[in-house]
């Protein structure tokens, strides 16, 4: 039984083909696995290991380094409240307390209905719009307690553009075959690119 769906398996091959070395596709493939299941399963890591030519232990090693990869199920919506300095100065602590009480979970916990996971998070590059948060890595800015409640209501009734956890970019890069220069393993490239050598080299 393969982990990736047929469509995602094809996509995986396309992604691997863009890199001079297949292992570089490991993080993109972990994202693809998380998009498919909402979290990264052991089966996914085993299959990714085969696809990029390494062991599942190596995949776990990489996977476990990165905050976004969840190795157990999380809510449909992961709410990350920024708690770093700019947001902390502008009321992130109160927002977090409010969120914990509204959702009935502590930071790090998930609601029993599987809808929400609440996390304290680090600087989200929206520091001028504090306090900010992200839902599945989409920002909300200058969030008041009332707006937080409205957000939770909207998400619970699916009244939002935000896709479920695991889905990052909803637009994929596709390189047309006739335009693709191609990824050559570095050891097979021995000379300067043609536009540079014609100009006399550097």
């Amino acid at each position, binding site marked *: 039984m393969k982990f990736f769906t047929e469509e995602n398996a094809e996509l995986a091959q396309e992604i691997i083909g863009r*890199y*001079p*070395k297949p*292992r570089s*596709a*490991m*993080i*993109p493939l*972990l994202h693809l696995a998380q998009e498919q299941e909402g979290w990264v399963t052991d089966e996914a890591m085993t299959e990714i290991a085969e696809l990029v030519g390494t062991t599942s232990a190596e995949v776990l*090693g*990489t996977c476990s*380094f*990165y*905050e*976004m*990869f969840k190795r157990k199920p999380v809510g449909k919506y992961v709410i990350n409240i920024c708690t*770093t*300095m*700019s947001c*902390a*100065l502008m009321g992130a602590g109160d927002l977090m307390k409010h969120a914990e009480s509204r959702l009935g979970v502590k930071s790090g916990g998930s609601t029993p209905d599987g809808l929400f996971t609440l996390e304290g998070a*680090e*600087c*989200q*590059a*929206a*520091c*001028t*719009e504090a306090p900010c948060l992200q839902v599945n890595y989409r*920002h909300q*800015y200058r969030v008041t307690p009332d707006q937080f409640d*409205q*957000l939770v209501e*909207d*998400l619970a009734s699916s*009244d*939002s*553009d935000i896709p479920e956890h695991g889905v*990052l*970019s*909803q*637009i994929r*890069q*596709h*390189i047309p075959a006739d*335009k*693709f*220069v191609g*990824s*050559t393993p570095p050891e097979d*490239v*021995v000379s*300067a*690119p*043609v*536009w*540079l050598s014609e*100009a*006399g080299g*550097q």
Partner: protein
Amino acid sequence: MTQMAGTPIPHAPGFIANTTPRIVTSRFDYEDSYTLARYEATDGYQGLKKALQQTPEEVHNEVRDATLLGRGGAGFPAGVKWGFCPPEVWPRYLVVNGDESEPGTYKDRLLMELDPHQLIEGCLIACYAVGLSQCFLYIRGEMAVAQERVAQALNDAYAAGYIGKNILGSEFSVDIVLHWGAGAYVVGEETALIESLEGNRGMPRLKPPYFPASIGLYGQPTIVNNVETLSNLPWILEHGSQAFTAIGTETSPGTRMVAVSGHVKRPGVYEIINGTTTFRDLLYGTDMCGGIRNDNQLKAFVPGGGSAPWFTPEQLDLPFEASHVGPQGSMLGSGAIMVMDETTDIPAAALTLTKFYAHESCGKCVPCREGGTWLEQILRRVVEGRGTNRDLDLLIEVGETICPGDFPHAAVASKGIEAVPFPYRMTTICFVGPSAFAPVHSALTLFREEFEAKVSGNDEPTMIEVAVDV
């Protein structure tokens, strides 16, 4: 995507225009600033066309002459960095650092979301000039909208013949591959970024020998440039290096983007003139932040991202010029200014940063892995009123295991404290460890009385809680 009635995903806010010439933010006012149609209608890809009419060496010289300082944090001139690739070692790669995550920093995400084609054009110019045969555009994992905007822009630019084989009918051929991370601050460090791009845990490499320009991605010469740095290139190629150096100062030409957050009236992202704009202009100028909220007193500010030693009102008249800011004890870093007014609990503010760096330690170097956590735990008990007088010295002792010797800090004339110039010595491979210490050290040096008040009369050590039933 159809707009639904409930909570939408908002357009990235924050940019506030002022009277500065707009080099990298020139399209931000358009609703469709991120589309190819808008880009082409506003001089888009003209810099690339001009570049292709010159030799790669001429393009490289143009960028070198512009003295374009890297906008990621280190401030090293891009044209000089490009020259560090060893001759006749092929292939060479370009890695774009779009992993913006330094606390307080908010500019690269705006550039990626609002003007992705400008970044793409910059990548193409760099690849052409230095003979880089493939470009990897690494965007921070937590930026879904930036990933979407850049993906669409890449697809459109490929279709229009700006990327890929025989660009605009020339011999120049290069792919740009979109890649994104998965949440790790340290990956913003260039050698960690390369490790991550190779599919590994994002742990920095030791320099030397692993300077990316000589031994980078797959062991090959690799240029790592920041998003804002590359976004300047189309303008420089189109208007020439002389037009660029006519703005700002000789050593810090052009403009730069800065984000001001915290206790100001108009927090925002501003494009300012490099080298001459002062912190006072920025924080109090009527076309910029307009002063401190509620007309409160300014207590302190972080001048260059969470890693930077702090400044007080005494440093307000310093300009955005490294040769001025460095000797005064800090750095300009990533253009992130975090402002604290008189109501700020200084030890608690320092804790918000130290916990960040302690959490983000990759674990490779012991002084950072252990020291960062120690700093956080000691500072936390001080903030929570469980600390002792001894803890204040202990914080410095732990910090000195990461950064031996005098740590840089600002002068406080009113207290007779003189500045210690930037940079610091360090026992770690990268700056994450020292960054955990920087806020603690600044806060303790500049506002020691606030710490003393929190530990007042408490000379007994606090026993560390031992968890038994977990």
